């Protein structure tokens, strides 16, 4: 934190400006990092569901419902990252 303040002072930024600049940078990281896990998760989940549907087309309806449930739970993590990204930017 000390180092950060020194860098900001050297660049001629006031406290609020430095805070806004660092928030803009870290907001991007917050969302980028939050998207990695759910991205892998949803890809794996949908891939497995398609496999199951291809193997047993008669069970497709049930698999699809369960798939949407799984996506909803996995996606929540990415969305929390997105909300934090907005909150940091405010």
């Amino acid at each position, binding site marked *: 934190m000390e180092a950060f303040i020194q860098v900001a002072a050297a660049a001629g930024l006031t406290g609020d400006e430095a805070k806004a600049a660092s928030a803009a940078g870290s907001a991007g990281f917050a969302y980028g990092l939050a998207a990695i896990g759910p991205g892998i998760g949803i890809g794996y989940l949908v891939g497995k569901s398609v496999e199951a549907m291809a193997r047993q087309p008669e069970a497709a*309806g*049930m698999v699809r*419902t369960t798939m*949407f*449930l799984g*996506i*909803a*739970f996995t*996606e*929540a993590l990415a*969305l*929390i990252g*997105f*909300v934090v990204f*907005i909150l940091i*930017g*405010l």
Partner: protein
Amino acid sequence: MIALEFPPINEILRWKDLFPTFNKIALIAVAAALIGTLIFLLAGSKDAKVAPKGIRNFAESIVEFIENGIIMQTMGRQGLGWTPFLLSLFSFIYLCNVPGIIPFLQMPATARMALPLFLSLLVWVVFIVTGFKHQGLGYIKSSLFPPGVPKALYILVTPIEFISTFLVRPFSLTVRLFANMLAGHILLVTFSLLSEALFQAKGNPALIPVGVLPLFMLIFLTGFEVLVAFLQAYIFTILTAVYIGGAAHPEH
């Protein structure tokens, strides 16, 4: 280069008050409730004995979708009594989502925290009350002390179950709906601003034809938002059905 200035987040989400305490978001929500009610009242006033056509056909296909696509898949036959609740939840959320892509409205009412939060608190109360109604005080036991777990592990399992059932559920329901609609709205705003800025690039005329690219992306995303508006209403409703089904009939 081009002058691209993204407006602050409040500018794209806050609309002017029509009159104090009533802004256009509230107007969209009220309109959604009225339109939904009107469609089903009109459909209900038609003669049930003749073959359904027109608005009744439309309403019946939605009811059928709720019954076969959501309730039968999650709660089974004994959950069919929940059709009216889930149907009104679904149609209200869908009609609140859809203004996000209707020209001149261009704002999903669910992109503000208040509406999803209220809906998910309603769902929270409903599934807890259902649990106590169907199982009495056994609901606490079946939801906090899941059967089939070694006794010593309850120290670990019970707090996790409490947090995930009673705290995280309403929170994640809210955030899922709200953040999805907000993300879609911000994406549409970004691409429309980008194409506008490129089409009006004064300094460099070579940039003007490039503006077609974000415009195509905008059209594609508008189509995508049609899907998202439906999908989020569907997911909210199906999760509600799962929560209510789990509260009414615990797993053994």
